[in-house]
């Protein structure tokens, strides 16, 4: 390769780096499928808007169910926190609620129970940001809900977060609160430290002093003035500490320690699901990107039901032939998480009360790949999980848990074996 081409290539590479767009996602697809399919299932999630200005609010609401078939290798959610999956503090979280209770502190949650959440975020840093609801569970890490893009417009410098404390102190902007005091006190100490170092470094330092010690003249290295300076330094240091402490006590007489308690939030009232789903066989057709679950479904309720949606990891396979199911897909729900083919059934006739029927649920879409859920085939705990939304003839909704082992189908291998035989 000629040198000019190398230089051109290098420049091109540098230009590509400069022109590369900001990385906007934050690794939600990199979480293992068993985490996303069998821990927290988010549903009915809505975003109040997909566009806000700096200082305006976006409200994220919805529910999540902590899955019945919780992975055995994860600790139970005895300590959890309602978070939000955003690229750092590009929004400010001004409120978060779990079942109407404040979620500013961590809480214990219960498996196989449902919780309603609400989070209010205030736009802070302009840009297009992927915003997820999220539950952090101690030992299990962040469990992400579906993500939607929210654009924040305006200037970051316009952002303010004012508040008033309980002693009446008005804080104009939490972003800058206390910073001048921090800078001031750091400066005081830095100046004293520099003066102390200058006191010693203004004279010959290393080799002459080393030689003096080697030759037994170390008493010449410390003068009476040095000792006096040391004594002054002790008095000055202690005095500044005391003065600073007294100043702070007088300026801020009412303070409290960090609040680290745990809150208690009751789950939503349990609604008995009169639908029982037992997975007979679940397969994933690798080249066809198709998941098929054959399940025995029993309707213990008093009304006939139809199957409207299979939801897992934020993906919603909706039965497009069922209007009641389609009506639950809001306009703000991310379209890439609602596969167009939806949910297909081997038998779409309503399941009568008391009836048990074996039904094949077909969910085929490239979303299995793009959401990287097919890597569950590499997991040591190879089970699929999700929620099945059933609708009765009066529009009532029943949510049933679906979980079971899954078997991969490698059709190219089958074809190859067929040819050799």
């Amino acid at each position, binding site marked *: 390769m000629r040198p000019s081409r190398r230089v051109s290539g290098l420049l091109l590479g540098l230009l590509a780096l400069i022109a590369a767009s900001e990385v906007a996602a*934050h690794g939600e697809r990199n979480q293992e499928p068993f985490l996303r399919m069998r821990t927290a299932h988010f549903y009915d999630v809505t975003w109040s808007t997909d566009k806000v200005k700096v200082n305006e609010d976006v409200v994220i609401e919805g529910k999540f169910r902590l899955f019945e078939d919780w992975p055995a290798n994860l600790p139970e959610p005895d300590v959890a926190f309602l978070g939000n999956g955003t690229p*750092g503090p590009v929004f400010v979280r001004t409120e978060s609620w779990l079942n109407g209770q404040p979620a500013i502190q961590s809480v214990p949650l219960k498996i196989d129970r449902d919780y309603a959440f609400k989070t209010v975020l205030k736009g802070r840093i302009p840009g297009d940001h992927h915003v997820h609801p999220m539950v952090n569970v101690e030992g299990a890490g962040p469990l992400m809900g579906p993500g939607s893009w929210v654009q924040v417009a305006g200037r970051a410098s316009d952002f303010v977060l004012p508040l008033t404390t309980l002693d009446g102190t008005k804080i104009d902007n939490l972003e800058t609160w206390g910073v001048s005091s921090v800078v001031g006190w750091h400066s005081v100490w*830095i100046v004293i430290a520099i003066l102390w170092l200058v006191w010693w470094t203004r004279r010959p330092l290393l080799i002459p002093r080393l030689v003096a010690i080697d030759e037994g003249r170390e008493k010449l*290295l410390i003068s009476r003035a040095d000792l006096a300076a040391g004594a002054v330094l002790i008095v000055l240091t202690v005095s500044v500490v005391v003065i600073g402490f007294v100043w702070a006590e007088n300026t801020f007489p*009412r303070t409290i320690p960090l609040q680290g308690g745990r809150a208690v939030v009751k789950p939503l009232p349990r609604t008995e699901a009169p639908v029982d789903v037992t997975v007979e066989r679940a397969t994933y057709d690798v080249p066809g990107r198709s998941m098929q679950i054959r399940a025995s479904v029993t309707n213990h309720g008093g009304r006939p039901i139809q199957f409207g949606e299979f939801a897992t990891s934020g993906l919603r396979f909706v039965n497009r032939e069922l209007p009641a199911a389609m009506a639950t897909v809001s306009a703000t729900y991310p379209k890439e998480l609602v596969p167009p083919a939806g949910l297909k059934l081997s038998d779409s006739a309503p399941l009568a009360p008391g009836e048990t029927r074996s039904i094949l649920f077909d969910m085929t879409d490239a979303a299995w790949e793009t959401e990287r859920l097919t890597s569950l085939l590499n997991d040591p705990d190879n089970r699929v999980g999700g929620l099945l939304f059933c609708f009765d003839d009066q529009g009532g909704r029943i949510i049933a848990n679906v979980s079971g082992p899954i078997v991969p189908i490698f059709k190219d291998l089958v074809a190859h074996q067929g040819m050799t035989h």
Partner: protein
Amino acid sequence: MSAQLQENRDSVVLYGRRWSRENAGLSRTFDILVVIIMFIAITAAFHLHFQLTVGDWDFWVDWKDRQYWVTATPILLMAFPAALQYVFWEKFRLPIAATVCMLGLTLGIWITRYSGFHTWSYFPFSMVWPATMIAGGLILDAVLLLSGSALITAIIGGMSFGLLFYPANWPLLAPFRLPMEAMNSLVSVGDYIGYAYTRTSTPEYLRFIERGTLRTFGGHSAVVSAFFSGFVCILVYLLWWYIGMAFARVATLPNRMKSFMGLHDRGAEGKDA
């Protein structure tokens, strides 16, 4: 002219020995080069040590509690000052090692907090300001100067190092401990900052903070923590003083590898002869 430094036209007396002006000038140039290099090296190494050990307790305003932050920070900070005090004092009679460490650390922290946490990651500076540790370093150096003893420096300086940390930082911290109400709950301003500015994978429960109280001394857990920290600092100071001594010693080992490979160890031969 002090007794330490006496000058005439061709030579200068430095600490009782006569140096030519040229040699004294070269020595001073060497001082300047080494001081710059050492300051950068100490800043980098001590800052790395600080990031890896104290870490979150100093990163965030809602981790600076009355118990673990107060206890752990001085103990973990004692390593470099104590080890370097041995070298600076025993080899050069310079009582500045702890101050150099703390000043370098302060510089390093401010660079990372401003560039890494504030500018790069969007956290407001009210959330990520660093604590000041310089007061403890000054006391350590001054006590070593006045006492000339590692043991006395450990006892008085080490205890002071632990005791002074919290009160020296209280003027910085107090504005963030004002009480406020958020969602019908009582929290401090620092708690609310930590809540409001999302750290996606650092939820509230990960905070390693006081979640009960030390039930002695009327719940003043910072006082108990500071005294405990000071006591441990005494021991840690002595440990690191001797580690500094070990690392400042030049040691050689006979090269056995050559004899294993059938080669003559000339050094050994010469020694035998």
